[in-house]
């Protein structure tokens, strides 16, 4: 693991990396809890171009225009909370081993401590849930946990904790029975994970 402090990178973050952080942030905001009316409204004002990512953003915007806060909350609960459990379990441990609280969570905790990231006392969810991981990636890119992390650090974190499973999760989210608002969220995540994988392959 590279110490961000010795990376020698300038503190400024280039535009493409800001955009990556923005995408991670919006995924985190939508997946951490049911979005409030204000966030749904802001999502509805988004506009995308003809690229696959742009069309997925456009689709989310259209669905958001037609969604009530209550309906999105019901959908969120059916997908992630449920009576016993939701339709999906958005945890690295579950997707990588079939069980919660397994070795992937332990490895993540080790890396978080190396990178100077602590779990907020406000959350009870295990740290390896998709929203927290997206938030951590955004934080590493922008330097919310210290200096911005260099690309090698970002790539290692992505490869260990997100790359192996997040694409599968977002594909599941896109196709889930209960997904309406969250179907385009799944599409955005799936496409973005492909972009991330390809970009890290090109140079880090």
């Amino acid at each position, binding site marked *: 693991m590279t110490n961000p402090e010795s990376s020698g990178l300038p503190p400024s973050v280039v535009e493409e990396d800001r955009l990556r952080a923005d995408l991670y942030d919006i995924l985190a905001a939508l997946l951490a809890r049911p979005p409030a009316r204000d966030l749904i409204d802001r999502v509805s004002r988004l506009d995308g171009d003809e690229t696959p990512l742009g069309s997925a*953003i456009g689709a989310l915007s259209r669905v958001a225009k037609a969604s009530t806060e209550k309906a999105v909350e019901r959908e969120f609960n059916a997908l992630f909370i449920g009576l016993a459990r939701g339709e999906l379990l958005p945890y690295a441990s579950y997707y990588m081993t079939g069980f919660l609280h397994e070795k992937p969570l332990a490895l993540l905790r080790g890396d978080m401590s190396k990178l100077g990231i602590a779990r907020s006392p406000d959350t009870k969810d295990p740290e390896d849930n998709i929203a927290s991981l997206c938030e951590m990636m955004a934080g590493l890119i922008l330097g919310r946990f210290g200096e911005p992390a260099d690309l090698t650090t970002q790539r290692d974190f992505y490869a260990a904790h997100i790359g192996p499973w997040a694409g599968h999760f977002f594909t599941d989210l896109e196709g889930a029975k209960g997904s309406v608002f969250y179907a385009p969220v799944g599409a955005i995540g799936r496409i973005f994970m492909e972009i991330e994988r390809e970009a890290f392959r090109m140079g880090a």
Partner: protein
Amino acid sequence: MTDEKARESRRDFLKLAATGAPAVAVAAVAGGTSADAAVPGGNADGKAAGLRKTEHVEKYLESARF
């Protein structure tokens, strides 16, 4: 490919692939609504970092963003 070249082609690729959404619009959407599950913790090498943001400061910055 040199590191510099690789970095450039990565940036070019991201420009093409990831700019389907206007960055500013997405930033405005996510701003101030962070999932808040991760906060800056102790420093990587364990030494007290003078510039380390405390969770309190982080929360303030989070709420002041936009």
